[in-house]
Protein backbone atom coordinates (compact mmCIF):
# COMPACT_ATOMS: atom_id res chain seq x y z
CA UNK A 1 0.00 0.00 0.00
CA UNK A 2 1.33 3.45 -0.92
CA UNK A 3 1.32 5.59 2.22
CA UNK A 4 2.04 9.34 2.21
CA UNK A 5 2.79 10.95 5.57
CA UNK A 6 2.59 14.76 5.70
CA UNK A 7 4.53 16.29 8.61
CA UNK A 8 3.80 20.00 9.04
CA UNK A 9 6.12 20.98 11.88
CA UNK A 10 9.53 20.17 13.30
CA UNK A 11 8.40 20.38 16.90
CA UNK A 12 9.36 17.41 19.01
CA UNK A 13 5.95 15.74 19.34
CA UNK A 14 4.98 16.14 15.69
CA UNK A 15 8.40 14.89 14.54
CA UNK A 16 8.20 11.88 16.85
CA UNK A 17 4.70 11.04 15.60
CA UNK A 18 5.94 11.24 12.01
CA UNK A 19 8.84 8.90 12.66
CA UNK A 20 6.51 6.45 14.43
CA UNK A 21 4.16 6.48 11.42
CA UNK A 22 6.97 5.96 8.91
CA UNK A 23 8.64 3.20 10.93
CA UNK A 24 5.42 1.30 11.72
CA UNK A 25 4.01 1.46 8.19
CA UNK A 26 7.38 0.51 6.67
CA UNK A 27 7.70 -2.42 9.11
CA UNK A 28 4.28 -3.59 7.95
CA UNK A 29 5.61 -3.73 4.38
CA UNK A 30 4.01 -0.60 2.96
CA UNK A 31 5.61 1.84 0.52
CA UNK A 32 5.94 4.96 2.68
CA UNK A 33 6.82 8.52 1.62
CA UNK A 34 7.40 11.25 4.20
CA UNK A 35 6.64 14.81 3.13
CA UNK A 36 8.57 16.85 5.69
CA UNK A 37 7.27 20.33 4.93
CA UNK A 38 9.66 22.24 7.19
CA UNK A 39 12.67 20.07 6.33
CA UNK A 40 11.95 20.44 2.61
CA UNK A 41 11.63 24.22 2.93
CA UNK A 42 8.03 24.30 1.72
CA UNK A 43 6.58 27.85 1.46
CA UNK A 44 2.89 27.61 2.40
CA UNK A 45 1.81 31.07 1.25
CA UNK A 46 -0.03 31.28 -2.06
CA UNK A 47 2.00 33.56 -4.34
CA UNK A 48 0.57 35.74 -7.09
CA UNK A 49 1.97 33.26 -9.64
CA UNK A 50 0.38 30.29 -7.80
CA UNK A 51 -2.98 32.01 -7.70
CA UNK A 52 -2.85 33.28 -11.30
CA UNK A 53 -2.23 29.68 -12.46
CA UNK A 54 -4.91 28.13 -10.22
CA UNK A 55 -7.70 27.99 -12.81
CA UNK A 56 -5.36 27.36 -15.76
CA UNK A 57 -4.43 24.08 -17.44
CA UNK A 58 -1.18 23.86 -15.43
CA UNK A 59 -2.13 25.06 -11.94
CA UNK A 60 1.06 23.90 -10.21
CA UNK A 61 3.85 26.48 -10.28
CA UNK A 62 6.00 25.72 -7.23
CA UNK A 63 8.30 22.74 -8.08
CA UNK A 64 8.04 21.36 -4.54
CA UNK A 65 4.23 21.57 -4.65
CA UNK A 66 4.38 19.75 -8.01
CA UNK A 67 6.38 16.90 -6.44
CA UNK A 68 4.04 16.75 -3.43
CA UNK A 69 1.02 16.66 -5.76
CA UNK A 70 2.41 13.67 -7.68
CA UNK A 71 3.08 11.76 -4.44
CA UNK A 72 -0.38 12.61 -3.09
CA UNK A 73 -2.18 11.68 -6.28
CA UNK A 74 -0.68 8.17 -6.08
CA UNK A 75 -1.41 7.69 -2.37
CA UNK A 76 -3.76 5.01 -1.05
CA UNK A 77 -3.35 6.13 2.56
CA UNK A 78 -2.90 9.80 3.48
CA UNK A 79 -1.62 10.66 6.95
CA UNK A 80 -1.50 14.24 8.28
CA UNK A 81 0.47 15.08 11.41
CA UNK A 82 -0.05 18.61 12.66
CA UNK A 83 -0.07 20.91 15.66
CA UNK A 84 -3.31 22.94 15.74
CA UNK A 85 -3.40 26.72 16.00
CA UNK A 86 -6.65 28.40 17.09
CA UNK A 87 -8.42 25.02 16.77
CA UNK A 88 -7.51 24.86 13.08
CA UNK A 89 -4.83 23.39 10.84
CA UNK A 90 -1.47 25.11 11.23
CA UNK A 91 -0.79 27.69 8.49
CA UNK A 92 1.90 25.32 7.15
CA UNK A 93 -0.56 22.46 6.61
CA UNK A 94 -3.39 24.75 5.50
CA UNK A 95 -1.06 26.29 2.91
CA UNK A 96 -0.10 22.80 1.77
CA UNK A 97 -3.77 22.04 1.03
CA UNK A 98 -4.11 25.34 -0.83
CA UNK A 99 -0.99 24.97 -2.98
CA UNK A 100 -0.82 21.21 -3.55
CA UNK A 101 -4.46 20.11 -3.70
CA UNK A 102 -5.33 22.24 -6.73
CA UNK A 103 -7.74 21.47 -9.59
CA UNK A 104 -6.57 18.36 -11.43
CA UNK A 105 -5.03 16.92 -8.26
CA UNK A 106 -7.68 16.80 -5.52
CA UNK A 107 -10.70 17.57 -7.69
CA UNK A 108 -11.81 18.51 -11.17
CA UNK A 109 -14.07 21.50 -11.75
CA UNK A 110 -16.63 20.98 -14.49
CA UNK A 111 -16.65 24.35 -16.25
CA UNK A 112 -20.19 23.90 -17.58
CA UNK A 113 -21.99 22.67 -14.46
CA UNK A 114 -19.51 24.13 -11.92
CA UNK A 115 -19.72 20.83 -10.06
CA UNK A 116 -16.68 19.35 -8.37
CA UNK A 117 -15.59 15.81 -9.23
CA UNK A 118 -13.37 13.92 -6.81
CA UNK A 119 -9.70 13.63 -7.72
CA UNK A 120 -8.09 11.57 -4.96
CA UNK A 121 -10.09 8.45 -5.70
CA UNK A 122 -7.27 6.00 -4.84
CA UNK A 123 -7.23 7.12 -1.20
CA UNK A 124 -8.92 4.46 0.88
CA UNK A 125 -7.91 5.71 4.30
CA UNK A 126 -7.40 9.21 5.73
CA UNK A 127 -5.55 9.48 9.02
CA UNK A 128 -5.24 12.69 11.03
CA UNK A 129 -2.94 12.98 14.02
CA UNK A 130 -3.39 16.30 15.79
CA UNK A 131 -1.58 17.90 18.68
CA UNK A 132 -4.63 19.86 19.78
CA UNK A 133 -4.96 23.16 21.63
CA UNK A 134 -8.31 22.33 23.24
CA UNK A 135 -10.10 25.16 21.43
CA UNK A 136 -12.22 23.19 18.97
CA UNK A 137 -12.33 20.70 16.13
CA UNK A 138 -11.77 22.75 13.00
CA UNK A 139 -8.67 20.72 12.07
CA UNK A 140 -10.62 17.50 12.27
CA UNK A 141 -13.49 18.80 10.14
CA UNK A 142 -11.09 20.17 7.51
CA UNK A 143 -9.35 16.82 7.05
CA UNK A 144 -12.16 14.35 7.62
CA UNK A 145 -14.99 16.35 6.02
CA UNK A 146 -13.63 18.94 3.56
CA UNK A 147 -10.79 16.78 2.24
CA UNK A 148 -12.90 13.62 2.28
CA UNK A 149 -15.23 15.24 -0.25
CA UNK A 150 -12.28 14.79 -2.65
CA UNK A 151 -11.50 11.19 -1.76
CA UNK A 152 -14.97 9.71 -1.59
CA UNK A 153 -17.23 8.81 1.28
CA UNK A 154 -15.96 5.23 1.25
CA UNK A 155 -12.56 6.45 2.42
CA UNK A 156 -12.19 5.33 6.01
CA UNK A 157 -11.39 8.15 8.43
CA UNK A 158 -9.21 7.85 11.54
CA UNK A 159 -8.51 10.70 13.95
CA UNK A 160 -6.01 10.75 16.80
CA UNK A 161 -5.84 13.81 18.99
CA UNK A 162 -3.51 14.75 21.81
CA UNK A 163 -5.46 17.04 24.11
CA UNK A 164 -3.69 19.58 26.32
CA UNK A 165 -2.25 17.60 29.26
CA UNK A 166 -3.07 14.39 27.38
CA UNK A 167 -1.03 11.19 27.56
CA UNK A 168 1.63 11.43 24.82
CA UNK A 169 2.89 7.87 25.25
CA UNK A 170 -0.63 6.50 24.95
CA UNK A 171 -1.13 8.45 21.71
CA UNK A 172 2.19 7.20 20.33
CA UNK A 173 1.04 3.64 21.04
CA UNK A 174 -2.36 4.05 19.38
CA UNK A 175 -0.87 5.70 16.29
CA UNK A 176 1.77 2.99 15.95
CA UNK A 177 -0.90 0.29 16.19
CA UNK A 178 -3.01 1.96 13.48
CA UNK A 179 -0.05 2.31 11.13
CA UNK A 180 0.89 -1.35 11.56
CA UNK A 181 -2.57 -2.46 10.54
CA UNK A 182 -3.51 -0.26 7.60
Amino acid at each position, binding site marked *: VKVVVVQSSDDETVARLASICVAAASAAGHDVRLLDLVGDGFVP*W*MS*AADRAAYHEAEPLVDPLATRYAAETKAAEVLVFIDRAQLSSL*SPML*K*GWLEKVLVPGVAFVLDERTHRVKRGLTDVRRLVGVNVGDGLGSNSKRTILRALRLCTGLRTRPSWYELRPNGDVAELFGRVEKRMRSL
Partner: protein
Amino acid sequence: MSGAIVVHCHPLAESFSGAMRDRAIAGLTTAHGHRPQVVEIGESPVAPPAERLAVETLVLVYPTWWSGQPAALSRWLYESVPTFGEVRRVIAISSHGSPKRTNLLEGENGKRVLRDVVLRRCAAGAQFEWIAFYNIDAAPLSKRVAFLDRVERRLSRP
Protein backbone atom coordinates in the same frame (compact mmCIF):
# COMPACT_ATOMS: atom_id res chain seq x y z
CA MET B 1 -12.82 54.41 21.35
CA SER B 2 -14.08 53.97 17.84
CA GLY B 3 -12.52 53.33 14.47
CA ALA B 4 -12.06 50.34 12.27
CA ILE B 5 -9.38 48.28 10.62
CA VAL B 6 -9.77 46.28 7.43
CA VAL B 7 -7.49 43.28 7.04
CA HIS B 8 -7.49 42.00 3.48
CA CYS B 9 -5.82 38.81 2.32
CA HIS B 10 -5.34 37.88 -1.33
CA PRO B 11 -2.11 37.37 -3.30
CA LEU B 12 -3.27 39.08 -6.50
CA ALA B 13 -3.33 42.87 -6.89
CA GLU B 14 -6.66 42.62 -8.72
CA SER B 15 -9.32 40.22 -7.51
CA PHE B 16 -12.96 40.03 -6.47
CA SER B 17 -11.64 39.97 -2.93
CA GLY B 18 -9.97 43.33 -3.60
CA ALA B 19 -13.33 44.68 -4.78
CA MET B 20 -14.94 43.44 -1.54
CA ARG B 21 -12.20 45.27 0.40
CA ASP B 22 -12.76 48.52 -1.51
CA ARG B 23 -16.51 48.45 -0.89
CA ALA B 24 -15.97 47.66 2.79
CA ILE B 25 -13.64 50.67 3.05
CA ALA B 26 -16.25 52.86 1.31
CA GLY B 27 -18.98 51.70 3.71
CA LEU B 28 -16.85 52.22 6.81
CA THR B 29 -15.81 55.67 5.61
CA THR B 30 -19.50 56.60 5.39
CA ALA B 31 -20.19 55.13 8.83
CA HIS B 32 -17.26 56.70 10.67
CA GLY B 33 -16.63 59.86 8.69
CA HIS B 34 -13.05 58.86 7.96
CA ARG B 35 -11.18 56.13 6.15
CA PRO B 36 -10.39 52.98 8.19
CA GLN B 37 -6.89 51.62 8.65
CA VAL B 38 -6.06 48.92 6.11
CA VAL B 39 -3.71 45.96 6.46
CA GLU B 40 -2.87 44.20 3.23
CA ILE B 41 -1.70 40.58 3.36
CA GLY B 42 -0.52 39.72 -0.11
CA GLU B 43 1.88 36.93 -0.98
CA SER B 44 3.10 36.35 2.57
CA PRO B 45 2.04 37.18 6.14
CA VAL B 46 2.63 40.60 7.65
CA ALA B 47 3.62 41.41 11.22
CA PRO B 48 0.89 41.47 13.89
CA PRO B 49 0.01 44.72 15.71
CA ALA B 50 2.87 45.77 17.99
CA GLU B 51 0.65 46.15 21.07
CA ARG B 52 -3.12 46.32 21.51
CA LEU B 53 -5.28 46.70 18.42
CA ALA B 54 -6.87 50.05 19.26
CA VAL B 55 -10.01 49.80 17.16
CA GLU B 56 -13.61 48.89 17.87
CA THR B 57 -14.34 47.19 14.54
CA LEU B 58 -12.19 44.50 12.93
CA VAL B 59 -13.12 43.64 9.35
CA LEU B 60 -11.57 40.58 7.71
CA VAL B 61 -11.87 40.29 3.93
CA TYR B 62 -10.67 37.12 2.23
CA PRO B 63 -11.58 34.24 -0.09
CA THR B 64 -12.50 31.01 1.71
CA TRP B 65 -10.13 28.23 0.65
CA TRP B 66 -10.51 24.66 1.92
CA SER B 67 -13.33 25.83 4.19
CA GLY B 68 -11.19 28.38 6.04
CA GLN B 69 -9.01 31.48 5.93
CA PRO B 70 -6.00 31.49 3.58
CA ALA B 71 -2.86 30.28 5.37
CA ALA B 72 -1.28 33.76 5.45
CA LEU B 73 -4.37 35.18 7.19
CA SER B 74 -4.44 32.25 9.62
CA ARG B 75 -0.87 33.10 10.59
CA TRP B 76 -1.76 36.79 11.08
CA LEU B 77 -4.79 35.89 13.22
CA TYR B 78 -2.80 33.49 15.38
CA GLU B 79 -0.13 36.10 16.07
CA SER B 80 -2.53 39.04 16.42
CA VAL B 81 -5.32 37.60 18.54
CA PRO B 82 -3.66 38.51 21.88
CA THR B 83 -4.07 42.18 20.88
CA PHE B 84 -7.84 42.00 20.22
CA GLY B 85 -9.01 42.82 23.76
CA GLU B 86 -10.67 46.13 22.78
CA VAL B 87 -12.39 44.89 19.60
CA ARG B 88 -16.20 44.98 19.97
CA ARG B 89 -17.28 44.00 16.45
CA VAL B 90 -15.76 41.39 14.14
CA ILE B 91 -17.05 41.36 10.57
CA ALA B 92 -15.98 38.65 8.12
CA ILE B 93 -16.55 39.20 4.41
CA SER B 94 -15.69 36.14 2.37
CA SER B 95 -16.27 34.64 -1.05
CA HIS B 96 -16.73 30.89 -1.50
CA GLY B 97 -16.20 29.03 -4.77
CA SER B 98 -18.70 26.34 -3.81
CA PRO B 99 -22.38 26.50 -2.83
CA LYS B 100 -23.44 26.92 0.80
CA ARG B 101 -24.45 23.24 1.10
CA THR B 102 -20.85 22.21 0.31
CA ASN B 103 -19.55 24.55 3.01
CA LEU B 104 -22.02 23.09 5.48
CA LEU B 105 -20.78 19.59 4.63
CA GLU B 106 -17.19 20.75 5.08
CA GLY B 107 -18.03 22.09 8.53
CA GLU B 108 -17.82 25.89 8.01
CA ASN B 109 -14.44 25.93 9.69
CA GLY B 110 -13.53 29.51 8.79
CA LYS B 111 -16.77 30.85 10.26
CA ARG B 112 -16.42 28.71 13.37
CA VAL B 113 -12.86 29.76 14.19
CA LEU B 114 -13.84 33.42 14.08
CA ARG B 115 -17.12 33.03 15.98
CA ASP B 116 -16.02 30.41 18.52
CA VAL B 117 -12.32 31.15 19.08
CA VAL B 118 -11.29 34.62 17.89
CA LEU B 119 -14.42 36.40 19.20
CA ARG B 120 -13.73 35.10 22.69
CA ARG B 121 -10.41 36.96 22.70
CA CYS B 122 -12.17 40.23 21.91
CA ALA B 123 -13.95 42.59 24.35
CA ALA B 124 -16.74 41.09 26.47
CA GLY B 125 -19.98 41.06 24.50
CA ALA B 126 -18.26 41.54 21.14
CA GLN B 127 -20.51 40.90 18.13
CA PHE B 128 -19.81 38.76 15.08
CA GLU B 129 -21.17 39.38 11.59
CA TRP B 130 -20.76 36.98 8.68
CA ILE B 131 -21.20 38.37 5.18
CA ALA B 132 -20.66 35.55 2.73
CA PHE B 133 -20.92 35.14 -1.02
CA TYR B 134 -21.40 31.48 -1.88
CA ASN B 135 -20.99 29.74 -5.23
CA ILE B 136 -19.07 32.60 -6.81
CA ASP B 137 -17.64 30.26 -9.46
CA ALA B 138 -21.14 29.95 -10.96
CA ALA B 139 -22.39 33.47 -10.21
CA PRO B 140 -23.19 35.87 -13.06
CA LEU B 141 -21.81 39.41 -13.00
CA SER B 142 -25.14 40.82 -11.78
CA LYS B 143 -24.99 38.72 -8.60
CA ARG B 144 -21.39 39.72 -7.94
CA VAL B 145 -22.26 43.39 -8.32
CA ALA B 146 -25.28 42.98 -6.04
CA PHE B 147 -23.10 41.36 -3.38
CA LEU B 148 -20.58 44.22 -3.50
CA ASP B 149 -23.45 46.70 -3.10
CA ARG B 150 -24.65 44.71 -0.09
CA VAL B 151 -21.16 44.85 1.48
CA GLU B 152 -20.99 48.63 1.22
CA ARG B 153 -24.57 49.08 2.49
CA ARG B 154 -24.01 46.82 5.45
CA LEU B 155 -20.76 48.46 6.50
CA SER B 156 -22.08 51.98 6.13
CA ARG B 157 -24.33 51.35 9.14
CA PRO B 158 -22.68 52.76 12.25
